[in-house]
């Protein structure tokens, strides 16, 4: 979204005192039955989970807490491990895409669980399985257009702008103040009030500091209890041992986080945006990825070839999602039009020597002022299965008018292509499947592998006679003891 559109959106939201939708369709499909929610309270700095609420997003969560998240005990993660494993297996087995509502901070904590426990021999199999699932979900969350992991604040920010800064929008509480304003209070006042409380999986600072102090006393109590008698445990003035006080505070904190998550989902559904038809395809992609990955315990791509494939896939998905947005969402289409990447044109000529056969050239006239079309740009006709490459862009002589010659690559049949005189929207969001090209490259490489890939390396020259590397790459190769044959 351009900076001016974002700024004007914020201006309008400020004026009307509520968030302004920036999309006409929902980029998220309907929640499947039993969609899960996960809210956490983390230990600041450590990013360790102190309390976790997990359960169906439309129901009551199961809350587990750890009074001392600094120890190696993972008992408080058992409920999460059980629920997540069961839910993911059930979803895949029943052929529906799983759905997990969470926050950005919670997702980060889940990702770190994967790093900490996935290959940790000192923990039990259930926690290792949980870590693998968390890694899988964190990885899935990186795919553009994925339909599995819903990060509440990111989802809302993708659909609305508020009358505050983008920086302030990162606080889920203040963001929600603009989506569901309280009666009798302006959204701005409510947002300022909510900003005083943290909303990223952290407790209020005073509560957090109190827990730090109580933890010390609880440990002391535990030591006293372990060596002597449980009766000697000192109690808080309220009559509770420190450990229980900590647990109560954590339960309260995670409940607040859960309520925010539920409110975010309600606010999003309250926008009543029709689901974009493109999500059906994205749902299938997410399902395929999850069902494949769930059976494997694979690490994240880290080697060059795996990484290049992964990056290509991300690029492909980005283009795919952008294409769906332009095709199915009128707000996104209008924004792209303002940027000159979508334009309306009239078909003023068709040059096709043989009917229904290539070559077929469309002559298009547009009056759009901002036009980001150059020779060679791939364009598709929106609302039709027609695309082609621009061969000529020239002025008609009339101010603000241009002629575009489009050589069609697809949709040359008369029943497919737009007729003479039709007014059509064209966009530069033609999907290029790089995976096909990549497979071709790999096939070629298998037939004639490059020298460097053969790994037939000679031992490095030794002694004073060794030549001094003039090139930096040679120098590096010398350092590594590798000299290609």
């Amino acid at each position, binding site marked *: 979204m351009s900076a001016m559109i974002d700024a004007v959106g914020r201006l309008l939201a400020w004026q009307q005192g509520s968030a302004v939708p920036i999309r006409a369709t929902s980029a998220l499909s309907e929640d499947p039955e039993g969609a899960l929610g996960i809210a956490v309270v983390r230990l600041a700095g*450590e990013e360790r989970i102190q309390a976790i609420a997990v359960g169906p997003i439309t129901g009551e969560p199961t809350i587990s807490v750890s009074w001392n998240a600094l120890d190696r005990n993972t008992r408080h993660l058992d409920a999460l491990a059980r629920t997540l494993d069961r839910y993911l297996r059930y979803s895949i087995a029943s052929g529906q895409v799983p759905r997990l509502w969470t926050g950005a901070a919670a997702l980060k904590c889940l990702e770190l669980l994967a*790093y900490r426990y996935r290959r940790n021999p000192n923990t039990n199999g259930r926690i290792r399985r949980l870590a693998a699932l968390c890694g899988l979900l964190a990885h899935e969350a990186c795919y553009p257009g994925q339909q599995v992991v819903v990060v509440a604040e990111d989802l809302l920010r993708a659909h609305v702008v508020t009358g505050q800064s983008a920086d302030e929008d990162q606080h889920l509480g203040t963001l929600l103040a603009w989506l569901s304003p309280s009666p009798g209070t302006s959204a701005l006042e409510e947002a300022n009030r909510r900003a005083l409380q943290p909303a990223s999986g952290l407790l209020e600072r005073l509560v957090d500091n109190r827990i730090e102090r109580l933890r010390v006393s609880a440990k002391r109590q535990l030591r006293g209890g372990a060596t002597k008698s449980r009766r000697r445990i000192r109690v808080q003035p309220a009559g509770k041992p420190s450990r229980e006080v900590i647990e109560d505070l954590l339960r309260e904190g995670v409940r607040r986080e859960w309520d925010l998550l539920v409110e975010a989902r309600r606010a999003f559904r309250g926008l009543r945006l029709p689901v974009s038809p493109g999500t059906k395809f994205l749902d299938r992609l997410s399902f395929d990825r999850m069902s494949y990955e769930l059976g494997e315990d694979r690490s994240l791509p880290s080697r060059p070839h795996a990484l290049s494939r992964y990056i290509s896939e991300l690029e492909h998905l980005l283009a795919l999602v952008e294409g769906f947005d332009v095709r199915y969402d009128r707000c996104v289409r209008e924004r792209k039009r303002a940027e000159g990447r979508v334009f309306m044109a009239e078909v003023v000529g068709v040059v096709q020597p043989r009917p229904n056969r290539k070559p077929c050239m469309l002559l298009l006239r547009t009056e759009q002022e901002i036009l980001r079309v150059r020779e060679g740009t791939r364009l598709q006709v929106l609302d039709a299965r027609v695309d082609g490459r621009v061969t000529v862009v020239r002025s008609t002589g009339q101010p603000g008018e241009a002629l575009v010659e489009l050589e069609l690559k697809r949709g040359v049949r008369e029943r497919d292509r737009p007729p003479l005189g039709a007014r059509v929207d064209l966009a530069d969001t033609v999907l290029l499947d790089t995976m096909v090209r990549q497979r071709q490259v790999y096939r070629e490489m298998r037939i004639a592998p490059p020298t460097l890939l053969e790994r037939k390396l000679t031992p490095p020259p030794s002694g004073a006679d060794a030549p001094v590397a003039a090139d930096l790459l040679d120098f590096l190769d010398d350092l590594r003891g590798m000299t290609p044959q």
Partner: protein
Amino acid sequence: MSLKGARGIVAVSQNAGCELLAAMVSEQVEDLEFYTRLAGPYPGEYGERASTMRRGKQFERVLYAQKGSRRAFALCETLGPTFGYQPQAMRVLDMREIEGSSVLETADLRLRRTRQELQSLRRGEPVAHVILQPQLSLSVAPGDTRFVVPDALVLVTGVRPERQDMYMPLEIKSCIVCRNLADSSSKDRARRQAAVEVLALTQEARRYGLYERVRNRAAFVYATPRGLTPTPPFIEDLYAETAEVNRALTVLREAGNRLSELRRANPGPLESLTPQLQTNYIDRCKALCALASLCKQEAAPRAAVLGDSASAVLGSDTELSRLIELLQGAQPQSGYEAQLTPQLLEAAAGLGYLPAA
């Protein structure tokens, strides 16, 4: 966040347009205390959490711990492979062992010892490979010199004949690095803090003719997701950060002059001069200064409250109500408005709020 020492300079480098912030740093006024003097008790959360501080201290303790019969520092095991030293053979000068009768005396003693080491380096004598908690000084303005304390200085030995040995600041941060990525805001602060240290080291090095050897570069050690295990050091160039910190030093000098000028007419405390000092409300203010909420209130009718991105396209001082009038069809009254209005209307049309022109 405290505005004393290097932190204040870092804060000014992040919002060099705010005269009030520069004045507070120049006078070494704590922003929370200043807020209380201006507006009463601070309503929100302020300062670092006990848990974060505990983790930071624990992480430093782990790295500064000495292990084995040779009492080798754990930090040396982290640094050794990257800097080309055998960890057991590394000589460490631990400045924490030097204590004076007061904070100032301790700082003075440590500064002298750090300078001795630099002098030895100049003479080509053997020096420590790592100096823990060294003391450096940075002249901010005439009569205003501040102590800067990096977590450590690491000796970088020359790999080319023309480059000679010199120390490089090292910052130890307990924030977690995952897939080689740290939280960008923590990283930005750490880089700016290191830039202050680079400038302080440059000033110290100038005394002994080592100026040419200082690079705009620092090393950072973060924590891995696995508890308090450190990452290998990241060595980063800090050209942009040192330029911004240099600019901050200029701003601080100007703020000092401006305060002296204002005090000629009004010799009162800083809060009495506040109305005459310009503020510059930006997105970062919330993380920089306790006065952010006051400045936001002041900026409320202007585009600055919609964020940096909106300020950049609408003009931070433009009144929001005027922009609404322009959207509703008011006639532009200046060249700027005439230029802005069509863009506003086009953007509103793009959002589906107005018919396209």
